[in-house]
């Protein structure tokens, strides 16, 4: 079974939770998750961010659920790195 090793997401989020709390919530989803959040654009109520998540087996469903729970929405999947089970 193929696993997701890297995800780059274009996410529109409210100002709160801030970038640190938002990234911590994502990083807490997996024991080996590495999260990078870059604010690309700032608006009055929202900010457009580019979020990079790296890990050995990223659960996309969990990532989407936590992002939506924090009031943000995923605009697009900009980059993805998938490894097949043979490559593990």
């Amino acid at each position, binding site marked *: 079974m193929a696993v997701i090793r890297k995800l780059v997401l274009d996410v529109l989020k*409210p100002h709160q*939770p801030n970038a640190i709390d938002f990234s911590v919530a994502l990083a807490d989803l997996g024991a080996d998750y590495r999260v990078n959040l870059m604010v690309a654009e700032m*608006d009055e109520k929202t900010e457009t961010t580019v979020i990079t998540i790296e890990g050995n087996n990223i659960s996309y469903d969990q990532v989407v659920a936590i992002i939506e729970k*924090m*009031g943000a929405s995923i605009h697009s999947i900009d980059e993805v790195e998938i490894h097949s089970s043979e490559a593990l």
Partner: protein
Amino acid sequence: MLPEKPIHLMLHVFRARGIMRRYAITNGFDGVLTILGMLTGFYFSDFHDLPVALSACMGAAIALFISGLSSAYLSEKAERTLELKHLEQALARNLDSSDYGQASRFLPLLVAFSNGFSPLILSLFILLPLFFADNLMALGLSPLLSAIGLAFVCIFLLGVLLGKISQTFWLWAGIRALLLALVTVAIISFFEI
């Protein structure tokens, strides 16, 4: 390592604690001054029917509780709903199931409780001497004067709390609040005489 932080809904609650504090202190002042005004009125008019005085004060305390509860809930709910709608427009999505949606339903209740219970608890505390009037009179103390004294203590403590919040000299903040109570008593006594 980043410290463990309560995320999601609790973050919204933490951000709302300033609003809850403000509501609690504002309505707490209302409660204390209302009961102080009634007690002062009873005292200066030589009204000695303590059960009637207690009933009147309890009526006012309950009315302040219900008024605080409902007014804060309705106004806070309206503000939160508007805020949520604006955010939903900006994000182009429904936020009902998100932390923002939960917060907009949960926080008005929390704010309403702090606004309603603060005058009720303070009023009940001030009225304690009237509840134990027989015991106090056996000790030679006036229940009305004791209750007025407790009201001054409450006002002073609310002032001290405000001083602590604004990080100014607590004693001066307490005395300033106490002066407000004294002015209230002076005005009431002027009308009673």
